[in-house]
């Protein structure tokens, strides 16, 4: 195939009528405003209920700090969900990553102190677990739901074995412990870190092959394959990325707590997936995005914080969260209702 054919333009460009349905690409989708409106509504309601405590700078900082873990986890989860898969391993990976980090940093057990290198080491543990999910899922065609469920327990097992029985490993460096809460430009570091990861995630989904292919795979895996996308390989990359996000969240959680614990991840899975769903990312894949997840995370965080502030009985808090979740998805779905709509 040596000859070069600088082919003539086959046809001169022709004006043709645009199809009636063709709509130009819009940058700001009106549809996504619903979730933002819901977030604002929540804020307004809680501000009205708690005039003195909700809209204070301290509480805003608290909310941002509380949001930082699910935000970090959410970036990875959203990527995975965009491909139509799911990652249930986050709590286990957070445990394994967090524990690795603590044990490789100056700590009360005096295990090892790699300084900065503890960070990449812990991230590698997360990425390794992500790699495990990705490989088993794509090579053996086991549903991601079950591989990641299994990996959750594997991660937890690793964390438990690392924890062993020689007492809680505490971080020795006070400056390190307080890093997540210290303010930079008025915002807690934990949130800034989360924000950076979220922005990086958004850039990935908008401007890189990895992100765009995630959407493509989620839209229709077979078509994506027919379009030449190495589906398996990209799925693996995405699970590795998600593993890194979970490990990063595990590190952040350990810093916030100032100690290693195999269960630092507790409660983050359902919060994150709920946030992804509330944000409007489709669990079927292909639709949604990281920005939406960020809005979803903020909604849930505001809700949890607001319920405590408003003095709702602890026994009822889960009911109120549940009802708000249902109301939010119902409200989001209502305008789109049609007799042919398929929702799983």
């Amino acid at each position, binding site marked *: 195939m040596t000859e070069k054919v600088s082919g003539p333009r086959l046809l001169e460009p022709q004006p043709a009528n645009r199809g009636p349905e063709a709509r130009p690409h819009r940058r700001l989708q009106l549809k996504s405003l619903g979730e933002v409106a819901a977030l604002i509504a929540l804020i307004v309601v809680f501000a009205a209920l708690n005039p003195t405590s909700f809209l204070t700078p301290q*509480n805003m900082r608290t909310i941002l700090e509380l949001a930082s873990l699910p935000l970090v986890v959410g970036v990875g989860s959203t990527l995975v969900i965009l491909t139509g898969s799911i990652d249930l391993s986050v709590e286990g990976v957070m445990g394994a990553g967090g524990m690795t980090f603590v044990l490789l940093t100056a700590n009360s057990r005096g295990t090892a102190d790699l300084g900065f290198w503890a960070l990449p080491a812990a991230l590698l543990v997360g990425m390794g677990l992500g790699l495990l999910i990705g490989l088993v899922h794509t090579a053996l065609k086991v549903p991601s739901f079950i591989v990641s469920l299994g990996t959750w327990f594997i991660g937890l097992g690793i964390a438990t074995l690392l924890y062993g029985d020689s007492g809680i490993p505490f971080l020795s460096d006070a400056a390190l412990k307080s890093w997540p809460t210290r303010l930079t430009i008025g915002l807690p570091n934990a949130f800034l870190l989360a924000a950076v990861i979220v922005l990086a995630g958004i850039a990935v989904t908008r401007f890189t092959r990895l992100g765009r292919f995630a959407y493509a795979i989620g839209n229709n895996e077979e078509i994506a394959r027919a379009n030449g996308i190495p589906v398996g390989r990209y799925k693996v990359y995405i699970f590795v990325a998600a593993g890194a996000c979970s490990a990063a969240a595990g590190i952040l959680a350990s810093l916030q*707590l100032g100690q290693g614990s195999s269960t630092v991840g507790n409660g983050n899975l359902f919060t994150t997936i709920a946030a992804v769903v509330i944000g409007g990312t489709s669990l079927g894949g292909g639709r949604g995005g990281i920005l939406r997840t960020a809005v979803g995370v903020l909604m849930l965080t505001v809700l949890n914080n607001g319920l405590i502030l408003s003095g709702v009985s602890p*026994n009822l808090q889960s009911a109120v969260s549940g009802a708000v979740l249902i109301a939010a998805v119902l409200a989001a779905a209502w305008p789109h209702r049609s007799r042919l709509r398929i929702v799983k």
Partner: protein
Amino acid sequence: ASQPIDKKDIVLVASVINTTNPYMASMIQGAQALSKKLGVPLQIVDSEGSSQTEISKIQAILAQGKKVALMVNTVASSDAPTIVNAVKAAGGYVSIWWNKPDDYEPWNVGNNFVAFQKYSGVQSGECTANALAKSLNGKGNIVALAGVQDSTTSQTRVAGLKEALKAYPNIHLLDTQPANWDPQQALQVTQSLLAKYGNQVNGVWSADDGMTVGSIQAVQNAGRINDVKFASDGLYPPEIKDMQDHMGNDAIVGETFHRGYMAAAIGLYTAYQAATGAIDPSKLPHEKRDSLFQLECVTPQNLSDYTKYDDPNYISSWMDSLIKDGPWNTPPTPLVAGGPEKLP
């Protein structure tokens, strides 16, 4: 009436709720130490926080036809009858720790259910409440972190707290929120509570020391560690260290002292003695079969009396005294009263 079992045939079994909580880790340590002292093999059961797992794992061990002397830290009160029945059917002996239905008494079941044992939750709550109130000079506002909502242990401790506070009309309990025994959740809940009440909060009471770790971190993050006092049940090594270091201007003002290793060893040894025929449960007074053990109130002033107990050498010699003095007379935690515990 059941026959005494030959020592050679006995297996000690300790069932714990998980293997990662420091209290549980200490229980395992105690069980191991006793097993070594007695020269009797030991098997650990990890309930993984699940009643069903706990029951079926215990049954799986019973099914091997071994004669067991069992100590169970039940996941839920309602597990006790099922476990006891299984042990009874297999001809083993069991002591239950911490949770059982109030009206389910060993003497109504028979010798195989040797004893139920716990530390008083009310006493724990009162002890720490008093310390907290005194450190605030009888005036101030506190918040409380409870454990899992349906936990009797947590509920009795909170009841004790509220009872003790009656003596301090100027101490106000602003809020009680559950943090599920989880340090991470305690951190988050405390953050929200600090945001809600701001500088009003003078003290944080927790139902256990794990949650204190989280709340201390939150208060440190808020930069108020010098203004807020803490009290909780458990006194774990990191807290001993914080107290010794006078962290936050002696921020930790009260703790109760008891140790998982003592609980596990007392429970196991009681069951073991019944198994070997060294004691006849049916001849024991009720208070020795439904028992509350001595709980010590620790303050920064008497802290030095308690630091020795975490020395591994001490644990070994404590086992000697347990074997010498029997389960009900070993200092520092002798039997104090019969159960069931009454709420004030």
